[in-house]
């Protein structure tokens, strides 16, 4: 137990108790140290103020589990030396002011399993059972002896007091039973009974269930008792008796009582008798109220319980405990005790999955020291023959993992071939760092997620020195594509570098893709210098392979265009060129005539240069010129261009341009006539 930091230096623990997963301790300064959940990864310890001091110390304390308390949090009940009781919860201590009810201080307290009652034992040997609200006293019983060593609840309605060699069971109405023993004993409370342990025996003490009491009561006239008795004497006579009683509901209750009694009974012969009685009653029930299913279920459960109660495995559980435990936990407990055969049969009998049992068996077998001397193949055959007999697909991955853990890698590889789930197979192979096999498996399965699972593991392993992971990735044709998609879409940080490296630094570099990437990045650059640099890089990449000479040429031209546009902008002091196509650049050069009269000859020369360099057809140049002149309103130039010689594109574009810019009808009609003549 770790004290909370503020208490660690001055206080020491005087008392501690465990309750479920919680741990509560009382310090010498009368403070409570509580740990809610000791099973947590980092158990948290906090202190609760009890409101007590050294002068008024606590004598005993009991803990109420969160699921039983009214507040839903852990509560602690403390008894004080002045005969009172203090309830401590998250809101702090609250004195219940019980000074007058008790003559002597309470020395022991115990909370009932249902959380509704509190049993208190005073120093004077008086047992008092109170409700948890401390308002009503349910029972007061004077033992007239020294306080016992233990006080426990036996079931939900009786209290067991235990001295060194004697026990006293006090029932709900104050009646009692005394047991004495020649040996010293210890009692453990369980959900519905008490287990008494001496050095030679382990016994179960349980209050007789109500249904059994009903049947066996000396003067019981209940139908359940009649059913039970009918088995023994005069079956035919009582049959008639039963038939005349047409009280279906009562009969159903009677059958239920017999079933419950059978389940609560430990001796098989008596269980049979109860069940027979139930069946006798069942015969009389009309079909819609049939209880057959319940009886069959009870018989099944009893069969399982009787089996586990045998000397081997010796799991003596009551039916109530079995129900709370669930069959799955029962199987687990059997597996821990190495009772695999029984576990397998029980799971088969109850229609549960047998796989966990089979896996556990195989794993346990692999861990045994005996198997180390066996050859892998022999062991595998042994496992397979045993597992196949049960005609189901066993998940071999777990067995293979166990084999790997046991240091038998080759056996693990053999076993993994039998695993039917590709995902499990790949996960295990990756865990074993068998990257190549894992990748092959993933590719064979044609599931992208699985390929990525293998791929990302390999990619991660690449950061630590792993000589042949690159070979691994680039050996398969589809894999580099997938890796690139991962880099492109999912790696936000330095994805360009990763992508570029994966394209260029491989055994079969893809320069076209790398070049395309550089071009794309170029367009993302903000500055002209950055863009030019990226394009140069792209051109260099394209030049690596003959297949991409078209791309290389285009990139060179793009670079040239950028340079020219940059030059135009600097020379003419405008910013209308960068990012334009050749067509638009030419258009702008024509349009600039009107504002840069002094540079017209230079502009014309530049147009010629552009046209020659980019091999712009005359036709397109004419179109561009017509539109540019019209758009910038250079009508003189427009007419001169139209009339100096017969235009290559005819007069239609002229007419359209004039119409578009709403020129006078007279001019349009002139051109229209020219068009008509042509």
């Amino acid at each position, binding site marked *: 137990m770790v004290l909370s930091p503020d208490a660690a230096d001055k206080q020491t623990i005087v008392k501690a108790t465990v309750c479920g997963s919680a741990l509560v301790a009382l310090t010498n300064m009368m403070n409570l140290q509580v740990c809610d959940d000791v099973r947590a990864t980092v158990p948290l310890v906090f202190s609760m103020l009890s409101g007590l001091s050294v002068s008024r110390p606590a004598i005993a304390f009991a803990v109420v589990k969160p699921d039983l308390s009214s507040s839903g949090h852990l509560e602690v009940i403390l008894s004080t030396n002045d005969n009172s009781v203090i309830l401590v919860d998250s809101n702090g201590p609250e004195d219940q002011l019980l000074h007058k009810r008790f003559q002597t201080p309470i020395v022991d307290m115990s909370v009932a399993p249902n959380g509704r009652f509190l049993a208190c034992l005073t120093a004077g040997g008086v047992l008092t059972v109170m409700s948890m609200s401390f308002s009503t006293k349910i029972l007061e019983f004077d033992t007239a002896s020294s306080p016992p060593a233990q006080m426990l609840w036996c079931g939900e309605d009786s209290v067991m007091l235990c001295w060194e060699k004697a026990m006293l069971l006090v029932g709900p109405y104050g009646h009692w039973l005394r047991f004495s023993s020649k040996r010293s004993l210890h009692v453990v409370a369980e959900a519905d009974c008490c287990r008494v342990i001496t050095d030679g025996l382990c016994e179960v003490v349980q209050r007789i269930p109500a249904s059994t009491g009903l049947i066996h009561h000396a003067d019981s006239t209940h139908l359940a008792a009649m059913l039970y008795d009918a088995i023994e004497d005069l079956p035919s006579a009582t049959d008639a008796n039963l038939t005349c009683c047409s009280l279906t509901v009562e009969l159903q209750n009677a059958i239920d009582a017999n079933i419950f009694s059978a389940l609560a009974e430990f001796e098989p012969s008596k269980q049979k008798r109860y069940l027979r009685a139930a069946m006798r009653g069942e015969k009389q029930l009309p079909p819609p109220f049939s209880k057959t299913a319940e009886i069959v279920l009870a018989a099944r459960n009893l069969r399982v319980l009787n089996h586990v109660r045998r000397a081997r495995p010796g799991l003596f559980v009551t039916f109530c405990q079995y129900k709370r435990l669930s069959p799955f936990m029962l199987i687990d407990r059997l597996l821990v005790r190495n009772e695999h055969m029984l576990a397998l049969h029980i799971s088969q009998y109850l*229609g*549960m*999955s*047998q*796989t966990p049992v089979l896996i556990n068996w195989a794993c346990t077998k692999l861990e045994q020291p005996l198997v180390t001397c066996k050859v892998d193949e022999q062991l595998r055959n042994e496992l397979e023959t045993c597992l196949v007999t049960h*005609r*189901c*697909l066993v*998940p071999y991955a777990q067995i293979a993992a166990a084999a790997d853990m046991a240091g038998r890698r080759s056996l693990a590889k053999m076993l993994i071939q039998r695993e*039917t*789930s*590709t*995902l499990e197979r790949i996960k295990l192979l990756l865990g074993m760092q068998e990257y190549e096999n894992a990748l092959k498996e993933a590719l064979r*399965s*044609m*599931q*992208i*997620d*699985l390929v*990525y*699972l293998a791929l*990302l593991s390999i990619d991660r392993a690449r950061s630590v020195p792993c000589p042949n992971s690159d070979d691994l990735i680039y050996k398969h044709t*589809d894999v580099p*594509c*997938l890796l*690139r*998609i*991962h880099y492109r*879409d*999912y790696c*936000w940080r330095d994805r360009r570098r990763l992508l570029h490296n994966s394209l260029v630094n491989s055994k079969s570099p893809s320069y076209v893709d790398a070049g*395309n990437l550089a*071009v*794309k990045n170029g*367009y993302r650059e903000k500055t002209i210098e950055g863009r030019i640099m990226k394009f140069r890089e792209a051109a260099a990449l394209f030049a690596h392979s003959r297949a991409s000479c*078209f791309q290389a040429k*285009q990139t060179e*031209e*793009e670079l040239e*265009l*950028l340079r020219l*546009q940059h030059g135009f902008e600097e020379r003419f002091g405008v910013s209308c060129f960068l*990012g*334009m*196509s*050749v*067509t*638009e*650049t030419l258009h702008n050069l024509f349009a600039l005539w009107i504002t840069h009269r002094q540079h017209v000859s230079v502009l014309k020369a530049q147009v010629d240069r552009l046209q020659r360099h*980019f*091999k*712009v*057809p005359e*036709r*397109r140049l004419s*179109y*561009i010129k017509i*539109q540019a002149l019209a758009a910038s309103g250079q009508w003189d130039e427009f007419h001169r261009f139209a009339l100096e010689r017969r235009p290559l*594109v005819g007069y239609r*574009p002229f007419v359209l341009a004039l119409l578009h810019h709403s020129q006078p009808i007279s001019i349009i009609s002139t051109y229209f006539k020219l068009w008509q003549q042509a």
Partner: protein
Amino acid sequence: MKKCERVPSGDNEPSPPVWRGEGGLGPLDLLRFRADTRQELFDLLEGVGGRQCLVLDAGFRGRLDHVVLGGADGLQNCGVAFVRDLAPELGVFDAISPPPDRVVYLVRAAPGPVAMVAAHVRAAVRHGEVGAAGAAPRFHVFMVPRTTLLCTQLLEDAGALPHVHVAPYRLDAIALDADVLSLGLDACLLDVKVHGDPAPLECAAQFLARLEQLYGTPREVWTFGDAARGVVERLAHADVRAERARRRAHGTGAGAADIPRLFGAATPRYEFADEPDPYARAGVDALVVLDRAVDLVTPMVTPLTYEALIDEALGGIVDARARLPRDFVRDGDDGATAGVAPGAAPAPAACNGHVEYPLNSDDALYAELRDLNVEELGDRLGARAKAIREAYDAFRRNADASIAEIHDFVKRIPGLARIYRSLRTHVAVAERVARTTDSRAFRERWRAERALLEGQEPAYDLIEDLVAAGEPAPSLLRLLCLQSLVASRAGVEALRAFGCHFLGRGVARASCRTPHRSSGDVRVRADPAAGRRVGRRWHPLGAL
């Protein structure tokens, strides 16, 4: 160029105001498919519980309209209090009603949307709105059509995974019409052929597996093209996996269902269902899987059918809905399109003077017109108008009509009125279409394409004219693509001369919108077309 013959539906009866035509009349009962998709969504939302804010990825509103009656707003019964589009900020919620306590994302499993979700979650964590231990997760991410390892990894890298609940929602296809299912994979050709990403193939295979489960395994499978073969191979693998899972489940009684699933698509429910063996109930004769790359020419050519021209001329048909100017669908009563819409669909959303108008075979008139050549359109519309007029006139002339006849006619009036309304809309649309098709540019372009297809020399002059006329780049590129697809080698060389027109424009990023129904659509046909049989059915047991 017609891609596929349409199954004549031939219904002239008035339609009740429920889903109809959009799934019920085709060779397969697509209503069942729709119900399956819808039920899955209801189950998912019910599992979330509480007051929810549903956040939809781009385009999902339109898709949900085809799944849930009334679209996203029809989910109020499932606890959806707010519906938002996925954006960097979700915006403020209504001050009167309490804010939602759960945020449900419906996003496609792609990096963009998932990264945005991760940003939302991170912001909420920063503000201390989530992260309390033990509390039910506030964020639920339903990835469509499946969760992928990479997307889950993305959430994990962003530190959002502990705070969200991730699950798949198989909204892989929606029934657009009685015989059309759309996967909505817009960029599948780019992904598969250019980037080498097989994800769309896997989506298609997953969808086909579901279709098989619903309608039976086809007796034979025909594939055309590499991608189609890839899809069918994946389908066969999925069958093997399903068969193994089934055997595992059967062999061990209650087992198999409790095997934890770590990632990837959910194992479909049907794998463990006690339904009869799908091979035993083959209601489908043949499955034909076509790779788009088998025929790249068709989408590049200007179409001439009515439906395709609405797509070209009126801004596109998205999720079987066109955006028409308001005066096209003007109507006396409020239910502007009640007659022709899938009945209970919400009144078309209007904005900027446009209304969304559903186009599907529910509308008997549209079903008749959609595949007509534009030349026949006018005659047919005129004939239909005349028929309605005659029905009215015949009744008026019949002065001594018996009570039964009057009663009969009155019963027919709603149907006639509906057809009349639809007729008016289609006349307006047809006029707009005709304006496009009658234009000189359209005719010249069409003629040039025709000449190209017939093997004549490419019309460089026309392209020059288009460049000069400032034709937008996608349209121009489409023509150039067509030319490069059909032209000789010399022709392709000549096309390179046009490269300089695009220099400096970053054409690498200009995407060419593929025309109507080119990708990821599944057409259900009553009888299989004749074709080369290249695939055969893989029986899973043989591969086990």
